[in-house]
């Protein structure tokens, strides 16, 4: 593979789509403005011109984009007006992921995403479309060399194909279904639905709108309830469908140095997580899932892909029984298998702080509402009860557990999260006390870890001061050496 290669022509389509998607928001106001003022022919002309320009540019940039593997390096040359040449050393490559969306799958293509360790996104490379065979070849070629360079023994194992010997987990369909039905996507879809409806209102002709409204009002209350229920179930099903498509065939495999995840029904995505970059392992039990005994497992990783939908956490497994998490960790990430069963709880005297923190805004709201809208005062009062319950729940949930190598924190905002932090992954440790804290011998701790580009700070409020000191002693390298 030493000769320079072009991408598959389908890359032109992807390029067009990307640019069109990026510029549509900029152009939309102009289009709307022009179409209102009756400049339609100009608009059409301009549109066609832009489209031709776009297509021409995409074809040119496709022609100029070449890649080749040379010695230990991947070389990419690209650029229409400004020529760019990029060389990535194999040893610097952290992961190579192949992913396919619908168009890729029709043509038997794949996208190759190459990640390096840096947090600079522009350093990474992506080949938007190559044939699947080429992608695989590239993957093996770039990957194998790195492995051979690291350890020679591994060569045999990578050659005799990897899939069998390594522990692997796949999500079952019922679990996927539950994951979809308990995911919080309901609210989001409901929002989208409402938005679409309000937008559609302006497109539907007035007469039809009027008739429909009249018909709706004339119906019996039962029909309306049933209709409402249908809409509700429909939205729910869409949520499930979304999850099934996104996480269908979710499979995680543990290799020596990395975790490997494939997922997606329509769009197949691969993700490689080098173990070295895992900063923390966490378990999330959302409010709906916790009573049912389900949890999701995630990791915090340094750098790597930023998934906009999932934020900075990367899912290791979308849904499993909470009781099975221990076994899962043991198999897939044995480095984090010491999942504690009990946690050191907070002292009783911390409870007032939690209650105040959860409800002070509502207390203010009650005062404001009581003054200005006296008859509505029950709304914030009801909310106050809920927030007080939340405060109590948080107080009950929060806690920590300390072993030689792991600090495990359990905490709750709304969802219950359990996070396992390794000593060497904590970047800094902080103890905070205000005046009353000091009298009460309480303290707040904060451990900071690195995740995608920013730090993530895990904070546990109002612990026993002696417990915080204990964690600090565990964290402090100095104290430890003193006691040895």
């Amino acid at each position, binding site marked *: 593979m030493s000769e320079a290669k072009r991408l598959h022509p389908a890359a032109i389509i992807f390029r067009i789509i990307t640019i069109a998607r990026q510029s549509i928001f900029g152009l939309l106001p102009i289009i709307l403005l022009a179409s209102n003022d009756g400049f339609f022919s100009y608009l059409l002309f301009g549109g066609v011109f832009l489209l031709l320009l776009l297509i021409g540019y995409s074809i040119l940039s496709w022609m100029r984009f070449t890649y080749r593997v040379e010695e230990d390096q991947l070389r990419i040359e690209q650029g229409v007006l400004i020529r760019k040449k990029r060389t990535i050393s194999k040893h610097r490559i952290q992961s190579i992921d192949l992913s396919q969306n619908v168009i890729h799958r029709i043509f038997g293509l794949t996208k190759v995403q190459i990640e390096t360790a840096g947090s600079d996104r522009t350093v990474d490379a992506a080949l938007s479309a190559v044939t699947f065979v080429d992608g695989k070849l590239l993957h093996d070629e770039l990957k194998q060399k790195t492995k051979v360079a690291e350890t020679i023994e591994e060569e045999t194992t990578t050659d005799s194909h990897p899939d069998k010997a390594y522990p692997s987990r796949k999500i079952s369909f019922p679990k996927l279904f539950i994951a979809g039905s308990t995911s919080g996507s309901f609210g989001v879809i409901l929002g989208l639905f409402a938005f679409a409806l309000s937008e559609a209102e302006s497109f539907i002709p007035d007469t039809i709108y009027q008739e429909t409204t009249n018909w709706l009002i004339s119906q019996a209350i039962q029909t309306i309830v049933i209709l409402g229920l249908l809409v509700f179930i429909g939205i729910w099903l869409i949520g499930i469908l979304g999850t099934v498509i996104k996480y269908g065939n979710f499979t995680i495999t543990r290799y020596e140095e990395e975790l490997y995840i494939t997922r997606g029904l329509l769009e197949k995505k691969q993700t490689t997580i080098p173990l070295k*970059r895992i900063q923390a392992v966490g378990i999330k039990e959302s409010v709906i899932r916790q009573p049912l005994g389900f949890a999701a497992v995630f990791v915090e990783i340094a750098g790597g892909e930023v998934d906009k939908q999932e934020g900075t956490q990367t899912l290791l497994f979308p849904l499993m029984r909470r009781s099975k998490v221990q076994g899962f960790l043991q198999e897939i990430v044995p480095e984090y298998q010491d999942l504690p069963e009990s946690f050191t709880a907070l002292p009783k005297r911390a409870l007032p702080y939690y209650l105040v923190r959860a409800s002070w805004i509502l207390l203010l709201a009650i005062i404001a509402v009581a003054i200005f809208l006296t008859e509505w005062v029950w709304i914030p009062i009801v909310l106050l009860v809920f927030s007080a319950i939340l405060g109590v729940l948080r107080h009950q949930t929060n806690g920590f557990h300390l072993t030689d190598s792991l600090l495990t924190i359990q905490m709750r905002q709304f969802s219950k999260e359990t996070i396992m932090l390794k000593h060497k992954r904590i970047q800094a440790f*902080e103890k905070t006390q205000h005046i009353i804290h000091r009298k009460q011998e309480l303290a707040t701790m904060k451990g900071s870890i690195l*995740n995608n580009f920013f730090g993530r700070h895990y904070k546990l409020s109002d612990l026993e001061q002696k417990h915080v000191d204990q964690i*600090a002693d565990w964290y*402090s390298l100095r104290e430890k050496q003193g006691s040895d």
Partner: protein
Amino acid sequence: MRQSPNERIAEDAIKAWKLLAILMAIIPFLLTLTLFILAYIFTFSYWYGIGLLAITLAEGIITIFIIPKLRWRRWRYQIYDQEIYIQHGILIVNRTLVPMIRVQHVDTKQGPILKKYGLASLTISTAATTHEIPALLEDEAYALRDQISELARVEQDDV
């Protein structure tokens, strides 16, 4: 984390902070002045202006004469071979541990105010956090920066 760190920051920090607070106090003072002028032009009661003036004065006295001293008294740090230990905060006391092996880089900084008093601030960055020791004697800050970067030059696992 039971004991406070030993080292205090430079005593001139109080003067530097005072100067900064005086400069900052100009803004609310100007606002108060504006209110008086507006009261004169639109002929509404001067009491609003007087009220604001009282608040401005109280705020000025607190930020100029009280806070810098308290802040300085609380500010402590200590550099060990293995870690950096920092304490700060007036009502809410913060104590931070930063292991040397997690330190990514150290900077010294000097703005015009600090320069006037021959001071410099030291910023310690890890991959996830930054910590600042706000006012050290110039030479001390530079020496400390070199010392920390020397100590931090241990082989790191990664990240």
